[in-house]
């Protein structure tokens, strides 16, 4: 497994460094505008990186059994944090969602932490119940209820992107545990009903869904972000404008250092290098997959797969939004997008993978 670890370490390092570079380039204009300092975002991201690397050192060496034993407590803490964050005055609103705790200059997103806690919890749960998971009432529903409670809290922020990632991650874990395919068609149906319900309570989401099919119908409203993203991606062409030469970052794409960072990357580096980066993601994921597949300990197997799944879901969702394959959902790109919690969790996940593969 040594080879896989080397590749995982190497690729995640390269991606994080690429991320820093493109955060610097894409955020410079906004950063200058908001803070009068073009380096603001990249500096913060660098500080987050140092903190994350420090935590990573601990996580790589930690005995996973300790986490496993205390996971219920961690889950409780996570849920309490989710409850706290939706209280006005405690949680901070950004881009219409009350998803952040603000501690001095740093801020934290509890939904990111509940994601990894829930993965560990589910891994432990599935280790115990996977062979009888098809007895739905006894074995699957308790998990679904916990999942549902967490999602409900996150949707109260509301944070649709994180909810989707968590749901799809946990579902994929349940999927590999051997749940019958039939169940997934029910889930699919439920999903459609759920999405319909969500749209009914917040009609602006309907506009988002329509806008991704034909963004030019409402170019200044719901189609705006997708159009601006396409205006970044397309002019990049095969070879790109060159590093630091994006035009869309000049106030066309809102907050280009977060959800749409890959659009700016395409604009500056072009098709060929963009595909190379995507290939790096694929190779990284494939190696995590190999590590997971080789695990004989079921907890570790489920855990590493859960981590893989969350990274894949997040990456695919982000890229699909950027290229206009799915409606805008507000998901960051792992390793690339600006955001402390996102980076910390990505590094934490990779650290857990390393931890798992060592033992």
């Amino acid at each position, binding site marked *: 497994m040594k080879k896989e670890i080397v590749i995982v370490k190497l690729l995640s390092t390269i991606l994080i460094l690429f991320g820093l570079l493109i955060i610097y380039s894409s955020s410079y204009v906004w950063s200058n505008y908001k803070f009068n300092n073009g380096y603001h975002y990249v500096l913060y991201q660098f500080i987050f990186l140092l903190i994350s690397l420090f935590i990573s050192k601990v996580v790589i060496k930690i005995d996973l059994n300790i986490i496993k034993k205390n996971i219920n407590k961690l889950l409780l803490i996570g849920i309490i944090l989710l409850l706290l964050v939706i209280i006005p005055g405690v949680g901070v609103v950004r881009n219409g969602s009350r998803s952040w705790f603000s501690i001095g200059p740093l801020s934290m997103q509890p939904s990111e932490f509940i994601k990894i806690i829930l993965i560990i919890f589910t891994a432990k749960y599935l280790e115990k119940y996977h062979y009888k998971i098809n007895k739905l009432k006894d074995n699957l529903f308790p998990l679904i209820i916990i999942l549902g409670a967490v999602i409900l809290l996150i949707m109260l922020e509301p944070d649709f992107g994180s909810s989707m990632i968590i749901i799809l991650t946990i579902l994929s874990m349940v999927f590999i545990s*051997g749940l019958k395919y039939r169940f997934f068609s029910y889930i699919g149906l439920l999903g459609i009903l759920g999405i319909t319900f969500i749209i009914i309570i917040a009609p602006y989401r309907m506009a988002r869904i329509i806008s991704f099919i034909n963004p030019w119908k409402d170019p200044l409203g719901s189609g705006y972000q997708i159009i601006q993203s396409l205006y970044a991606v397309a*002019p990049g062409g095969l070879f790109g404008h060159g590093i630091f030469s994006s035009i869309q970052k000049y106030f*066309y794409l809102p907050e280009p250092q977060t959800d749409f960072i890959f659009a700016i990357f395409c604009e500056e580096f072009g098709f060929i290098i963009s595909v190379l980066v995507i290939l790096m993601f694929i190779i990284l994921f494939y190696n995590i997959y190999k590590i997971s597949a080789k695990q004989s300990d079921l907890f570790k197997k489920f855990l590493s*797969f859960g981590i893989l799944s969350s990274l894949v879901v997040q990456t695919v969702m982000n890229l699909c939004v950027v*290229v206009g*394959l799915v409606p805008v959902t507000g998901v960051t790109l792992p390793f690339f997008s600006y955001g402390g919690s996102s980076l910390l969790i990505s590094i934490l996940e990779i650290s857990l993978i390393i931890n798992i593969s060592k033992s």
Partner: protein
Amino acid sequence: MNYENIYRRQKVFLIITIILFISIIIKIFYIEYIDYKKINKLANDLWNRELPITADRGLILDRNGKVLASNITTTSLVVVPKQIKDKKYAAEEISKILNTTYKNIYGHITKNTSIERIHPEGRRLSYEIADKINALNIDGVYLLKEGKRYYPYGNVLSHVLGYVGIDNQGLSGIESMYEKYLKGTDGSIKYLSDGKGQRLNLSESYNEPESGMNVLLTIDLDLQLAIENELDIAMSKYNPENVLILAMNPTSGEILGMASRPSFDSNYYKNYSTETINRNLPIWKTYEPGSTFKIITYAAAIEEKVVNIFEDTYYDSGSIKVSGSTLHCWKHEGHGLQTYLEVIQNSCNPGFVTLGLKLGKEKLMKYIHNFGFGKKTGIDLNGEAKGILFKEEQMKELELATTAFGQGISVTPIQQVKAVSAAINGGNLYTPYIVKGVEDSSTHEFIYENKKHLEKKVISEETSKLVRYALETVVAKGTGHNAYLEGYKIGGKTGTAQKVDNGAYMQGNYILSFIGFLPADDPKLVLYVAIDHPHNVTQYGGTVAAPIAKNIFKSAVSILNIKKSKDVIPKEYTWLDEKYYLVPDVTNQDVKEAKKLLKNFKVKYIGKGNTVIKQTPKANTMTKELGDVVLYLN
């Protein structure tokens, strides 16, 4: 067994993942390669801003490169609506400064367009207004330089030059005919804008406007100014309906000067009536030429050898009978016995009738057509008229007789100048032209150049020489003596044509004209002056038009650098130096009234009544000062 199951499911997950990634890569390829052109264009439309810079129009220059139409730089207001943050404030302030409605400006600055010109209120702003707008210091409000046509000489040559509209587009005259050369190509400042509409310093391209090409005229500005000056004097002195002067180089057809009154200032053409603006009289006006036309008859008669001007004689009794009608000479008592050289000196109508009859209508009309009457001269200006001739098949002896001395037909000034030029230049009929060429405004290389165009040879060199000599004697010894300029050989012919209205001659309403040239033995300049219905003056071309021509000749000799000649025919003091007056119509008037009106004449009475029933000579004939006028009383 369970492990295998899990492994299989993991594989399914892996395959789905890879399919998703491949779809993403395909979509990126689609956007960046297949949709590239379309979306890239849309994105560029979004990013690019273009501030237009209008090109200077090419200059219009005289033959010596003096500027007749130039450009001055003015300022125009242009707004970039996206860059204006407080649109209400901007609309309020700008509408106040431009003295227009808030609604109007608000409409402009809320338009969904990248760049909007405030038209027409924001065009060609004065410095003070531009300063005021500048002082507002509103983002997205730009003042752009814009060229405006300027005619430094105002009224001078305005009918030829024409004028331009608000967008600097040629609307008439040379400005409109040569629009495609003069207009040039507009430039722009192209810059990238950010999402807030601000200018990005990334790249900026300056698309230099390309000035239009210069149009060079054959006009000599100095001569033109002398002409315009004479026109103004004539206007104030005689208050005529209109007056026109045309100057041409007879050996090439180049127009050296062309002007008429009423005229207009091209800078402010809107202040004039369309009639004034559109009628370039020297090419537009058609009228009975009168005696100046006799030159053509004379040339034809000499060329056809029907007369020997030195030896053949004619006795003029004051009138001639043709086909039962009596045609009078302008001099009531007649000129007596004259050679045909004297016939033209005296401008004797019956003398010319005999020449016409000797030629016959076929020959006379052949020459009239050959000299270019009855059709456009082909001058490179718009608005030329053709004139009217008698149709040959309908012409009887009487029409032939009147045509011979220039009555009953209608011609344009430019036709006469073209024809007389041919008559005196050795017989070469040249097409008149006014545009010398078009040159590139920066390299001054000719894009094209007009050359003189010989249409045909109409008379022989020998005939032309005789015509020149005869016309020189007209000025030295005859009716044209008022154009005589000491030391210079000047040829010419006067004309006094009664105007026609609704097929009848108008009483006391004449067009007085003079056509002359110098030097008479080697003509460099042909000059035509026509004054329509002058007031307070003897209605005679030699009295009114010839002195105007003389003044222009005086200027022309220095402008065109014409040397004095040695063998000038000396001026003869003839009966013409006696004053001649027009006899007014006094029939049916009271004797006392008639006596007052006839104060220039010796009045004799026949009969004893108080009312005049008949007069001799008839009204509107010329009689010398203190000559006899007999009144028959009831």
